[in-house]
């Protein structure tokens, strides 16, 4: 292979290769009239005439626009396109802030038990005692792990947990006759924080991080006022740093009558080490799809339970699961008589299937295992930082927790960007890290290895990143043109946004594909 062969270094790292892959059109392009992929039992009741029952005008004859396919077609379609995805089960998936840890197979089996998967949220509670007990125990475990007093499992993801949390804060202030209008959000925060606060009608006040990347008490004090309902902070922060001033900051907010919301996305770093509830946080969410190993599913479902201190308990989403000791033993029921509750957030009790998985995870790890997660996650992140420090810029170079944030500053001379490094990593057989976040780090590469990665796995990943840094110097166009090993080369995101094509339309698809496309139009 020549030095210009984009596969040269890749082969040296020994993690990636190319292999035959399969093209696959859209379902609609595979469709043929009359093909069938389903079966229905013979109707054992008199056939009803929907037109007579519902009026012909209310009906459609068929679902035009849906494809017609055999089961074979459908199975192959999805099997083939699945192979275009990267996945945790294929390797290191270092998306910072996302905690792409291993998703245990045991959890998948547990969640599919018919007594969980085939049960109905409205069946009488006497007939769902097993599930209610599980939910109640999971609430207790999460409360213990976080140092909170009570937990609601209803929120379907972290952002909905935030929404619930801020709502409780609002309800709390309102219950005290206070109308506070502002929420403090550090400039390093995840976008869901301000968005969730805004959904509550709050005005967002951005609090700048200090030069060391940390949130400083004086910055919070400066922003604090009687208008402030709460501070939303993330600890460890999105820079992967433990907010060392958290106790003092919480004191300042509390002194001003405000509350402290904790974004629990990074809880993995603290399991068994420290508890948000002990750090001054009044309300927080958990991302069970991060810390508690439930799979991300290509974009969900997740689960975002919310935990609160006692003062906020009356405001928890309704209903709540309760346990009662009766003459027949422990009984679980749903309590809907919650006059101060912010109300329901979910049509039912939440993403229960994910809660079952998280429960299985807590039971599998126990106290020692949970702590070991935090320890090894932090060890991994610090090891990566130590090994990459020379080749990549480290904007805030200090001890990190579960993730480290690098940048492309050193590559600027070669006109190689974080985007290029990310895409080139794909050629080396890795999913890229989170990029361009947090926003306060220009060209951020946010790397979270999680505890699931072994030393030699990290070493191979480091080799890839070091090789890319060398390539950036020696042959930057290889990096800028990446990925080279994928079925599709770099995709034109600008074009997608400028002229949105958001669904398949037969004619449009034809025209689209015959239109000459300018090479290199993508950034």
């Amino acid at each position, binding site marked *: 292979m020549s030095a210009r062969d984009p596969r040269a270094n890749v082969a040296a790292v020994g993690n990636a290769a190319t292999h035959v892959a399969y093209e696959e059109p859209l379902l609609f392009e595979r469709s043929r009239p009359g093909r069938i992929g389903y079966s229905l039992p013979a109707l054992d009741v008199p056939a009803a005439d929907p037109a007579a029952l519902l009026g012909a005008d209310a009906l*459609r004859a068929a679902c035009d626009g849906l494809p017609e396919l055999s089961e074979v077609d459908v199975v192959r379609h999805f099997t083939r396109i699945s192979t275009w*995805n990267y996945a945790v089960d294929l390797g290191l998936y270092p998306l910072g802030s996302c905690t792409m840890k291993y998703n245990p197979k045991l959890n998948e089996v547990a969640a599919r038990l018919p*007594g969980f998967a*085939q049960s109905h949220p409205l069946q009488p509670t006497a007939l769902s005692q097993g599930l209610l007990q599980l939910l109640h125990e999971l609430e207790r475990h999460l409360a213990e792990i976080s140092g909170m007093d009570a937990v609601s499992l209803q929120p379907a993801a972290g952002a909905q947990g935030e929404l619930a949390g801020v709502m409780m804060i609002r309800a709390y202030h309102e219950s005290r006759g206070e109308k506070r209008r502002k929420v403090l959000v550090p400039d390093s925060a995840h976008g869901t924080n301000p968005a969730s606060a805004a959904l509550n009608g709050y005005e967002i006040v951005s609090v700048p991080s200090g030069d060391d990347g940390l949130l400083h008490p004086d910055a919070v004090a400066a922003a604090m006022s009687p208008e402030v309902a709460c501070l939303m902070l993330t600890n460890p922060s999105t820079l992967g740093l433990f907010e*060392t001033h958290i106790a003092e900051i919480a004191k300042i907010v509390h002194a001003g009558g405000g509350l402290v919301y904790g974004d629990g996305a990074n809880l993995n770093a603290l399991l068994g080490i420290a508890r948000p509830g002990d750090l001054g946080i009044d309300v927080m969410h958990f991302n069970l799809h991060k810390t508690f190993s439930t799979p991300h599913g290509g974009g969900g479902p997740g689960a975002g339970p919310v935990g609160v201190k006692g003062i906020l308990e009356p405001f928890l989403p309704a209903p709540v699961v309760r346990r009662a000791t009766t003459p027949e033993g422990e009984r679980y029921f749903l309590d809907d008589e919650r006059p101060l509750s912010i*109300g329901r957030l979910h049509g039912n009790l939440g993403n229960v299937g994910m809660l079952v998985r998280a429960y299985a995870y807590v039971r599998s790890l126990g106290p020692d295992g949970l702590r070991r997660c935090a320890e090894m996650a932090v*060890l991994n992140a610090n090891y990566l930082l130590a090994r990459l420090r020379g080749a990549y810029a480290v904007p805030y170079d200090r001890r990190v927790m579960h993730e480290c944030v690098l940048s492309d500053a050193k590559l600027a001379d070669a006109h190689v960007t974080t985007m290029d490094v990310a895409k080139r990593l794909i050629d080396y057989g890795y999913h890229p890290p989170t990029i361009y976040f947090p926003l306060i780090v220009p060209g951020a590469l946010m790397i979270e290895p999680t505890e*699931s990665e072994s030393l030699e796995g990290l070493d191979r990943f480091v080799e890839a990143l070091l090789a890319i840094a060398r390539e950036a110097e020696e042959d930057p166009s290889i990096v800028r043109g990446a990925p080279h090993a994928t079925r*599709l080369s770099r*995709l034109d995101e600008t074009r997608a946004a400028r002229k949105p094509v958001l669904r398949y339309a037969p004619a449009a698809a034809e025209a689209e594909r015959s239109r000459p496309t300018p090479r290199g139009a993508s950034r």
Partner: protein
Amino acid sequence: MRYIPHTEADVRRMLDVIGVESVEALFEDVPRGLRLGRPLEVPAAASEHEVLRELGALAARNVHAESHAWFLGAGTYAHFVPSAIDALASRAEFYTSYTPYQPEISQGTLQTIFEWQTMICALTGLEVANASMYDGASATAEAALMAMRVTRRSKVVVAGLHPHYRDVVRTYLGGAGATIEHASYGPDGRTRDLASHVDDATACVVLQSPAFLGPVEDVRAAAEAAHARGAMLVVSVAEALSLGLLRAPGELGADVVCGEAQSFGIPMGFGGPHLGFLAAREKHLRQLPGRLCGETVDAHGKRGFVLTLSTREQHIRRERATSNICTNQGLMLLRATIFLALHGAHGLTALARQNVAKAAYLRSRVAATPGLSLPFSAPVFHELVVKLAPGDTAERALARALDAGIVGGLDLAPYAPELGPALLVCATEIATRESIDRLVSALGGAAS
């Protein structure tokens, strides 16, 4: 611990490279006084077999749709799930991947979303659909918020809504200063006098059809009532399967169609994870909440898909985003897309027709049973209200059904006490004639 690969030798080597003495030292930034200093009080770790046994025992303490004949619906429906769905959704490439931020290595997920968006547009009769919401309830709340943004009005009229959806709408809209007005149902069970609730401050009418109590609503009339005052019509479909038979609400004038697609290949799962969907007209695209997948080309002009228009979203727009949603229900979207691909243009309609036939048979049996009655005459999809004999109670009727191996429906007392002792009963394609007969005789059993 089998999930964590570190050996003690590994840990030593890594500490050396980092240049610290101990793992403990890595946590030096955590002030001593703030550390936990004791083991967590959660149960000791159990082996894989023990965990499965424990969970098996908990699972065994719930009735479910395989242990009993099933007539309980009310927003969560017992339909058959073809085996291919779980086989495909269990591919690690789908379920252990993240949101497809890096398109070159996520085309499997992205193409699926694009296919889903296309199919939801076809089913709703609208032009743009997003990549899922948490569930039908929050999708409905987000639809109302969207209408408020589009119209810059703050009153929302709701009709026919599942009481839980109503609650969630109330919760979500609390921060936006909305007022919510409920239109009630008339003697046939359908929403009445909708127009009288709509005024110039009305952002939208949110109409559920089929309504919570079963009736298929008059979407066209609702659209006229809303549009007459410049309001939008949001149609919420808590049973997406009904779209296989009923005319697309978009064709009847709905501006936004949202709802719950659990019926498309997703197990009931004690209420979640399910799958919210939301579709709208192209002109409202910039106000749409949630993720969107769009078509584009790669550097060689080959077709591919990417997440797009993220300037609406929280990670770019932050407090000015159209929604705070981030993680959504991706894997459920995959399941539903597979379901729709399997059933296709004709299968979905055929399946919907079976549901209608089962409910019609149930209705006829109830009508013929002394003591039982049908309070509403409006046509239904697969769910209807059954009034019990005077003096009977829903609890007793359900207990009789349970004795016959049947979960017989929803006790309406907490939701519609005005009906007296009554059940909401749902008959899907999985209800056999024989089980319907047994149900009806159990429910009518108070008379004997």
